[in-house]
């Protein structure tokens, strides 16, 4: 009991538009209880971008789905608090959440081909998203708004494009159409779940730039969920690194990328080959595989893959580390090692490999 209920130490910004406190999402299954998210605390202000980083199964997508209230309440146990513009949506009725979803919070999915309906014209789908939250708007108004949005996200000839079907769009254009749909109601919070993973780098650069421009224009808060550290370093102001459903490190993008403190973050940075520096230096991968969320390792969930798990006697195997200040203000890390030990190990083992060099 003492190890599993540990509210994270990261402070919640009281002025932030989105405040998530000690969020836990659990799915009871035949094989056992899946603790997909196990105590996450973070906040995002309007005009700011939070990057959530982690591998498959780290709980990043489940976190974002719960902010949209997309989990089936009959099969999901959600505790904690998700406050959107001052309203806590945990335990809220579905009808109330529907009023928020799409209007205050919107989402961009990874795969625009499966997120757009193949049978309806792109313009009609965007107009529908508008009509849902503006019931008094006429069909014509909604259609005009859709064309307007397509133009805003940089689709040439929006009038003609609105009358086409998703399959007539290229991958990058489809993602733009998705963004247009997400932004049609001027949401204050935009969640982008791997928005550029399916795209080529040149198109990815266009989409990231578009999101930045739109954020400046609409002053919205953005949560960028990705496994790509490169994308995070381009767009995020703050970063949350998740592992096994728990936050392991939080801080500004500069703190996480330039002065990372958690061995998992080190592992990620030393695993990614760089465009600069010595290409003959081997990468330093993280050994093993991500853990099962049904049967997390006891103590620090990262301990079976951590090279330094033995550093603290038995603590890594028996005690779940809490997020604690990691030196600089705003920088928190969940690791048993002391600040001095981490500094030394980083300089010795990590600083020369991958993009950490």
């Amino acid at each position, binding site marked *: 009991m003492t190890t599993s209920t540990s509210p994270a130490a990261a402070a919640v910004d009281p002025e932030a538009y989105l405040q998530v406190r000690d969020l836990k999402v659990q799915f009871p299954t035949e094989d056992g209880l899946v603790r997909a998210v196990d105590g996450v605390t973070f906040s995002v202000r309007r005009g700011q971008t939070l990057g959530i980083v982690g591998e498959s199964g780290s709980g990043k997508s489940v976190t974002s789905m719960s902010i949209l209230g997309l989990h089936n309440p009959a099969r999901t146990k959600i505790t904690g608090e998700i406050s959107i513009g001052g309203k806590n949506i945990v335990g809220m009725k579905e009808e109330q959440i529907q009023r928020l979803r799409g209007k205050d919070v919107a989402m961009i999915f990874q795969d625009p081909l499966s997120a757009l309906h193949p049978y309806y014209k792109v313009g009609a789908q965007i107009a529908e998203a508008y009509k849902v939250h503006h019931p008094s708007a006429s069909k014509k108004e909604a259609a005009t708004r859709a064309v307007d949005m397509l133009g805003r996200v940089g689709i040439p000839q929006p009038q003609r494009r609105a009358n086409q079907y998703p399959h007539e769009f290229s991958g990058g254009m489809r993602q733009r159409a998705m963004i247009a749909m997400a932004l049609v109601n001027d949401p204050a919070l935009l969640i982008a779940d791997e928005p550029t993973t399916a795209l080529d780098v040149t198109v990815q650069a266009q989409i990231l*730039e578009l999101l930045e421009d739109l954020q400046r224009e609409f002053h919205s808060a953005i949560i960028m969920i990705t496994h790509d550290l490169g994308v995070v370093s381009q767009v995020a102001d703050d970063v949350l690194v998740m592992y096994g459903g728990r936050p392991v490190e939080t801080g500004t993008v500069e703190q996480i*990328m330039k002065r990372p403190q958690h061995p998992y973050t080190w*592992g990620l940075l030393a*695993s990614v*080959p*760089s465009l600069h520096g010595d290409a003959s230096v081997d990468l330093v*991968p993280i050994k093993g*595989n991500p853990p099962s969320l049904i049967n997390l390792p006891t103590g620090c969930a990262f301990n079976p893959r951590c090279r330094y798990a033995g550093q603290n006697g038995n603590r890594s195997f028996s005690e779940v580390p809490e997020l604690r200040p990691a030196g600089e203000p705003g920088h928190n890390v969940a690791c048993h090692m002391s600040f001095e030990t981490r500094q030394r190990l980083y300089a010795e083992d990590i600083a020369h490999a991958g993009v950490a060099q």
Partner: protein
Amino acid sequence: MTDLADSAASTATTTTPGREPLLKVEGLTKHFPVRSGLWGKGSVVRAVENVNFEVKPGETLGLVGESGCGKTTTGRMLVRLLEPTSGKITFEGEDITHTKGNRLRKLRQDIQIIFQDPYASLNPRHTVGRIVAMPLQVNGIDPPGGVKKRVQELLETVGLNPEHYNRYPHEFSGGQRQRIGIARALALKPKLIVADEPVSALDVSIQAQVVNLLRQLQRDLGLSFVFIAHDLAVVRHFCERIAVMYLGRMVEVGTREQIYENPAHPYTRALLSAVPDVTKLGGHGRIKLEGDVPSPIDPPSGCVFHTRCWKAQEKCSAEAPALVPVQNGSIAACHFPESGEVV
């Protein structure tokens, strides 16, 4: 005296194995016929158009480009999974462009492929032992010590537990499955491996494990690789020489230093600048390419990149540039090549 000369000659050939290319590709072209609508007019997708390159023994060549640039089609033609429309593929001095039957089976012992999707490329109903042993059985090879021993050795080489011999693919994670695919490719002791996006379906930490494994195998076994990928950082890490493709054509070929530090083709520059760089926070200095890649059914006239190139002039839409040596030492197909280091 003659002895001395002989030994000098032989050392010369052993120290410079780069003399004779292992694989030579000339004018390789692949067109896929398509038809729009039931009675529509037939047209062709020009997937690969007049591609030339060489791979020397022990060399790693990277093929990079965006989706639809023809890199996978090229790879599949090399292992003869696709029949080229025209052009010539030479392997160890032998024309293999249209090899058939027994000779093709023999050839495939020397050229193997690793696929992108570790979920789709392994038969779910076969045990790992059977999957890895398949190339040996198909070719009627009976290794010393028996098939099982050889398979277990292979599993060990790629970092899997030999005791996993009797397990099924679904019992393994993505990274482990990719290792099984690699073990299968190594079974016949190939000279050349075509690796088609071998790590792009894997998580970052697992990706590094597999990249390190491939690098180690390349060093230990002296394998040649044609490494197809869209991730420029992975390619830089793995390949000594890189060929950049755009719309079915090769636009620049050069060494790692030439391509990454001093690229000559505007497309190579744009591609590099578009890669989100962890070492630089906040996106700046990106070259923004307008629009999408044109359709390979109806490619632009002249230089196919001219519709998106910021340097394009009249000549570019009229005349297709040839791949010629340029200032940085690479070869590039551009009328107005860039010079100077990238920042």
